């Protein structure tokens, strides 16, 4: 399809057709292709795509001025005197002409000239800026990114009023031609890192980009199959904060999720609200998140191993309670726990896909009917349900990693059930070795703890007061070490 288009262009050029004729040929049978011919000296052709243009803007910026047209000399002359659109430019390249046309620009051709004037008459579609549902905060800005890249850039520019804020624009996707913008702070971001990211994006060959998550997979140098390696956020204040630390942001048209990189594992512990709270409370919250995640992943496996192999570790009174609750269960502790975890995961997945009104019913059915009935029927023990539920809830302390952590929980529980404590221990070591070995864009994934970078611990788990955070994180390559007075 694409090749036939290129062939057509090649043919048009060789037949001596000008840009207008070539464009007309490409969109000849399309209903939304609008063409108006205005005579005044030389002939002027006004061309637009009805479905992508705002008719009022076309009238106001192009047709009305052209009504006063008396004697057209050239496209330059037209641009200087008549067109009053805020974004009007002369486009000498046919590829750019087609791109502008597809984006909703109105094109003005002067007969006998190849170049054309493109006037921004794009239709404003999409939702307005609102609080993102994935990262709600008690305090702090509530604005969130939207699907329109231009609005997203505006949200960043609004916060970073400096000429050092730079954008590198790339178009990706053979069919979608999605606008992608690499955004960074000059002098703060590392130049090599910027080049590296831009080169990676330029080398992407794909039919279409429908969301920034498509690009995240290309930006993950090590093709990590477990943990995510590129940060995502819907909040402009978070992106700005990260850019001030030397990171790079990648904005994709059509996606409210902005990518940030390099990415550290510790970022999963940090929440958008952390920076607007008291630093002591932030530290406590982060510890709580960490403990809940570790407990969520390990609790089911430890419960299974202790029940199956090392019950001596459990205090006697607790052991008696567990034994009383589980003595009539027909399954082994391992199958019992796996069942609870899988049911919980099914409920979570179903709940995500259900309309919100049905979701509440589903939660009730899941919690009361399934859980209570299973316990009463003697299929699952109450302690297993409690541990499974506790662990399931704890996973949401790191909402972006719930699926990965759930998978880990399931795997470690299975290994623990077969190999006992040693299996759990080896699984933890395996995961640690894996995480510790990850390093992209010269940034170790487990920094600032492994390797230990004391400066970066200022905002790792416990947060130093803002006035004391004088240096940028060293684990992230950057061009300027000092945060203040630089």
């Amino acid at each position: 399809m694409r090749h036939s288009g290129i062939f057509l262009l090649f043919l048009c050029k060789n037949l001596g057709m000008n840009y207008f004729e070539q464009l007309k040929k490409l969109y000849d049978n399309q209903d939304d292709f609008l063409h108006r011919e205005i005579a005044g000296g030389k002939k002027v052709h006004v061309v637009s795509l009805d479905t992508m243009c705002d008719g009022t803007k076309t009238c106001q910026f192009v047709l009305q001025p052209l009504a006063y047209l008396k004697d057209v000399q050239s496209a330059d002359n037209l641009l200087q005197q008549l067109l009053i659109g805020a974004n009007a430019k002369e486009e000498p390249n046919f590829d750019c002409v087609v791109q502008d046309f597809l984006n909703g620009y109105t094109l003005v051709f002067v007969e006998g000239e190849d170049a054309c004037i493109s006037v921004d008459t794009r239709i404003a579609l999409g939702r307005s800026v609102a609080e993102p549902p994935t990262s709600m905060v008690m305090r702090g800005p509530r604005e969130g990114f939207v699907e329109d890249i231009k609005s997203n850039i505006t949200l960043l520019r609004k916060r970073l009023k400096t000429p050092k804020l730079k954008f590198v624009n790339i178009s990706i996707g053979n069919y979608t031609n999605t606008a992608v913008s690499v955004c960074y702070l000059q002098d703060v971001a590392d130049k090599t890192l910027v080049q590296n990211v831009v080169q990676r994006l330029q080398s992407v060959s794909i039919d279409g980009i429908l969301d920034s998550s498509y690009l995240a997979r290309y930006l993950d140098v090590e093709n990590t199959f477990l943990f995510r390696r590129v940060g995502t956020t819907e909040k402009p204040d978070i992106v700005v904060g990260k850019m001030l630390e030397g990171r790079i942001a990648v904005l994709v048209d059509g996606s409210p999720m902005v990518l940030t990189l390099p990415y550290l594992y510790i970022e999963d512990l940090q929440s958008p609200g952390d920076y607007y709270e008291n630093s002591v409370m932030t530290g406590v919250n982060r510890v709580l998140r960490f403990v809940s995640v570790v407990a969520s992943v390990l609790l089911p496996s430890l419960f299974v191993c202790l029940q199956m192999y090392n019950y001596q570790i459990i205090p006697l009174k607790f052991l008696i309670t567990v034994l009383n609750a589980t003595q009539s269960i027909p399954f082994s502790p391992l199958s019992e726990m796996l069942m609870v975890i899988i049911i919980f995961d099914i409920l979570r997945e179903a709940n995500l896909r259900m309309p919100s009104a049905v979701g509440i019913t589903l939660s009730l059915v899941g919690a009361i009917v399934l859980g209570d009935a299973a316990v009463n029927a003697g299929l699952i023990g109450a302690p297993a349900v409690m541990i499974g539920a506790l662990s399931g809830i704890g996973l949401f302390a790191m909402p972006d990693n719930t699926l990965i952590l759930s998978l880990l929980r399931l795997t470690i529980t299975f290994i623990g059930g077969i190999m006992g404590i040693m299996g759990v221990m080896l699984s933890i070591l395996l995961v640690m070795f894996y995480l510790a070995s990850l390093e992209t864009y010269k940034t170790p994934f487990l920094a600032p703890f492994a390797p230990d970078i004391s400066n970066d611990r200022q905002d790792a788990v416990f947060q130093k007061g803002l006035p004391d955070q004088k240096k940028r994180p060293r684990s992230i390559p950057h061009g300027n070490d000092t945060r203040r007075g630089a």
Partner: protein
Amino acid sequence: MNKNKVNVSQLSLLLLLVITGGKFLSLPSILAKDVGHDSWLVLCVAFLWDAVGLCFVLWAVKLNKNRLGLDDILNVTLSRLGSKLVLAIFFVMFMCRILVLLDSCYNTFAVTFDVNTNWVLFMLPIVAVGAFAISRGFNSVARTAQILFAVIFLSIVALLVYPLTQAKFSQLLPVGEAGLGKIVGTAFVRSFWFSDYVFIYFVLEDIKPQKHLFAPMLSSFTVGVVFTVLLNAVFVALFGSVAQYGNIAMSKIGMFSVAESTDGRWDWITLSVWLTSVVIKIVIFIFCAYKCVEKIFALHFGKANYLVLVAMAAILLVPMFVPVNVFLNSFVRWCLVPFAVVQYLLPLCMPIFTKIANGKQMQT
């Protein structure tokens, strides 16, 4: 990116973990059997030798300006054949150590935790973890040690605190009853259990040059020594003359950490955490043995070579045919002198060897 790169702080933490990991399993009872309540003195003597050896190795690291590997240095100074011979001794030594450590872990799990697993099913997952670590690079082990260090160290402290208050240190008196000759002799006979710092040889070319080398390394060595000697002394002070029959020392000490048996054996959790350091030590030795093969055959495997790893796993099947204590008292005793050469003589020569090799490298 060099996947084996390691910095001084990581190296010092690894040193601390390998010193403390593995010495609280069967060694205390072996030493108690050899010299009675003076076993802690044997440890002191052995660690004194280790301290000298470590200083010389660190000196060699300082002198190694061109970041040469052990094989590069030995090829220049001892000829290719000599180099291969030394590396072969190292390989045998590491395999023996892996075997003994695995057996101790196996006993801990089988005896203490009542998990009667088959040897193959026990050994293979640990070797698999070692293989995974090799494929990810030594750096991943060093970084993991950095993260787990605090937890492991806390587990040792937790296991030690309560028994420390109950230990009758009068059991250690009179000091030196076994006689200096026997103590020094035992330290040599049991030298196989010491000189854990030799793993540094195999990351010689990967140590990031840093200003401070001796201070952090010797500090962590000292802390490791203090804890090992203290734990050994507490073990003997708690069990007195029956210490020689208590095979897994850490597990036996842990019993004293629990006030009431109805509270549950929570010490097993801390014991498991501490056992992580033993597994890390095994992984490091697997890495070193693997490196020996690489260097002996002058090959460089991009990722983990499964043929080599399978061969190593096959060697580790020995306990299925020969009990490890028999193996220790026969094969390891025969190899005592060659092992002592690489453990104690080679470190003393390393600074000179390194200087010569670096000098020749500069000339070429």
